[in-house]
């Protein structure tokens, strides 16, 4: 039975489903990376994902436009991000709790809107798979890497983009400086608040896109609390990835693939209790961090509100 795990079907299955499962994490974690690198801890990711998922689903369902749905998610995410940015930048709210507040609000609001505007569980025709010509025909590889829908491709494409923006642009430089030493950035005329507004709004947009990737690309359905904790894992993956896009990619893939591995273990009927299988992704994620020797430090100003001359 265990040997079944090493068949090509299973390996291809694990990797390709790992890639799919990683998609919402990538969006949310990359967004969270930006806000954390600039010094803002956003624990409201899950709420933003749910709102994004709902907005995208609603537009896709009622107006039949998937890209309209994506746009709706972006807008809703931006509004949520704006609110979070205002509360943490201007009102100096403790970010740990205000994030939980936004989570609760998003959780409730998405469900309320769902009940009032849609009513019952429905499905939409989500983004279709795009088979990249020739590449998708390569046995194994094609199925793993080149047979996904557009939001999956975008998510993975955003990893190098995020790395590039953080490390090669003036904006990235400001973000890193603001998260590390806001006073220094401020003294050079960098608007700490503006940078943080940008990153937190961007984080909101990305979380919402992560939600949209679930509701109109991967699952094509909306249900209350459909993310069920995914947003919190996304935050955890930021720590796993050491605030670096590539590390986050590694973490998201690891977590997702082990999750998919545990699905296969159950499907193949390997006799271990399902609960033990379900624990695997969590245990492994911790273990990898324990044995890895990397000693990354987080942004020094993380979750400290900025006040000039403070």
């Amino acid at each position, binding site marked *: 039975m265990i040997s079944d795990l090493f068949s090509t079907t299973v390996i291809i299955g694990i990797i390709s489903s790992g890639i799919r499962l990683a998609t919402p994490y990538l969006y949310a974690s990359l967004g969270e990376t930006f806000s954390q690198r600039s010094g803002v801890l956003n624990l409201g990711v899950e709420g933003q994902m749910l709102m994004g998922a709902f907005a995208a689903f609603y537009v896709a369902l009622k107006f039949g436009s998937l890209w309209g749905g994506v746009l709706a998610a972006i807008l809703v995410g931006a509004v949520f991000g704006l609110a979070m940015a205002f509360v943490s930048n201007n009102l100096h709210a403790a970010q740990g709790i205000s994030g939980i507040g936004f989570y609760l609000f998003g959780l409730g609001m998405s469900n309320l809107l769902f009940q009032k505007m849609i009513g019952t569980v429905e499905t939409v025709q989500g983004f279709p798979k795009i088979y990249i010509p020739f590449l998708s025909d390569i046995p194994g590889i094609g199925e793993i890497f080149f047979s996904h829908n557009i939001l999956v491709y975008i998510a993975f494409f955003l990893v190098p983009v995020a790395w590039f923006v953080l490390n*090669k*642009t*003036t*904006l*990235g*430089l*400001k973000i*890193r*400086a603001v998260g*590390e*030493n806001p*006073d*220094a*950035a*401020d*003294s*050079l*005329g*960098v*608007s700490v608040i503006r940078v943080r507004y940008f990153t937190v709004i961007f984080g909101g947009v990305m979380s919402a896109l992560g939600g949209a990737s679930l509701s109109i690309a991967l699952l094509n359905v909306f249900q209350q609390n459909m993310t069920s904790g995914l947003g919190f894992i996304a935050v955890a993956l930021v720590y796993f990835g050491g605030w670096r896009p590539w590390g986050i990619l590694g973490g998201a893939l690891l977590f997702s693939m082990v999750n998919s591995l545990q699905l296969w273990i159950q499907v193949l009927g390997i006799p271990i209790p399902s609960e033990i299988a379900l624990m695997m992704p969590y245990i492994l994620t911790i273990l990898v961090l324990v044995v890895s020797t990397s000693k990354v430090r987080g942004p*020094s100003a993380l979750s400290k509100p900025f006040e*000039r*001359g403070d």
Partner: protein
Amino acid sequence: MISEVLPDFRYLDSNKEYVMVKSNTLPSGQTRIDNMEICGITKRFPGVLANDHIDFDVKSGEVHALLGENGAGKSTLMKILYGIYHPDEGEIFINQKPVTINSPMDAIKSGIGMIHQHFMLVQTLTVAENVALGLLSSRGLLTDLDRVSKRIIELADIYNLKIDPDAYIWQLSVGQQQRVEIIKALYRGAALLILDEPTAVLTPQEVEELFAIMRQMVKDGYALIFISHKLHEVIEISNRVTVLRNGKRISTHLTSETTKEDLARWMVGHDIEFITSHEKSNVGEVLLKLENVSCNSDNGRHGLSDVSLEIHSGEILGIAGVSGNCQLELAETITGMRKTTGGHIYLGPDEITGLAPGELTERMLSYIPEERMRDGVIRNFSVAENMILREHHKSPYSRSGFLRLKDISAHTDELIEQFQVKTPSQATLAKNLSGGNIQKLVLAREISRNPRAIIAAQPTRGLDIGASEYVRAQLLEQRKAGAAIMLISEDLDEIFALSDRIAVIYEGKIMDVLTCEEATRERVGLLMAGVHPKKKASA
């Protein structure tokens, strides 16, 4: 007003003569600030009146020094000028026009640059990145670090500020970090530059280099504000000097018309005596001994290698060296803050290698750390809590796990009194004390235990003259009481004034240990630069 004595468009050249400035734009293309005036600035903080209706001005082509004890309100005034604090009252004029400076951005736009007392550098970024931060990039959205690096090297050449643009800030010594701060300001083409205690962390050579830069800038038409606690520096570099005390302006004078003694008196309110030399004390047996001690440094450069030293009871061993030559590492290995990679350390007859700081406290080793804000105090703890930081678990401060607030309070009162720590109350948080008073707090805690050995790292850095003299007197007192003292300092005057013997450290190695008689400034200076005079002579 004094400022009227000084005609516009002039600078003081090295012959102390005024010379006309030709153009009203600076070399950087920035328009000159002919005149900046601060009128009636008042700033209140909870519990403190930091600035009390202060008038101050500076003109193109002059260095206006600002003097005052720790906490007199110098930095506060400058931060108001730079838009970091908002004044409660008062106005600022540039070229006779009133300006509102609400943020550093406004200050930069008005041509004001500032080198902060506590560096404003992002440790995790490179030199070039720190300089490029906030600048418009020639490549639009992309950073143009290559170009910035090139310009840094150009500027560094002009003003003789050697620096590697690709180095990370955390890899640099404080002296080097200071240069980055200056480059940052020069790069932005400020016309008025505020230098808040720039020399506190520099070696005498570095200070000379900085002064050369400042003279050049004055010649070019810059207006400079210079803050320092070292009177001879003020005398040497400034055209005018203003003294603050307790948030008030006490005086403004042409420097040429004042003396060190005047300045000191205005600052402190009474005369002070300077320690210039000291009498011999009775040197006893070896108390602190290092045998071939090595350690790693944490900025990727060399660490300590094979350091052997002996300090006797009743002796002060000065460790001279240019900043960044493992002085920090030396202090930290002895005090258990850093692991050794080899060698042995003894306190009296007992080996103390690898003991934790707590165990060393038990053995009466005291440490006055260089980074007092990082290591020495807990900013958000009260004065009382900081006073017992080292012995919080011991009687009488604690019994069977419980803190005894009465005893702690009594002890704190006593030390505040004895060491003249200026604080509103013992419940005041350490972060609200001025730098000098924080150092007094540390000193009180470390010395009041009657330690057997003291490691004092840069104990007077950033302190006003009164406080510095006080700290030095206390160290001499401890020497008299029989403690073995290691005095690590980059201030050669201090080393010469206090040490019985002088060891010179260079790149983690002890170059030589000299007795007072052997140690001349030239000899020590050469050793600090890594040159062995004897070998040179024999070669």
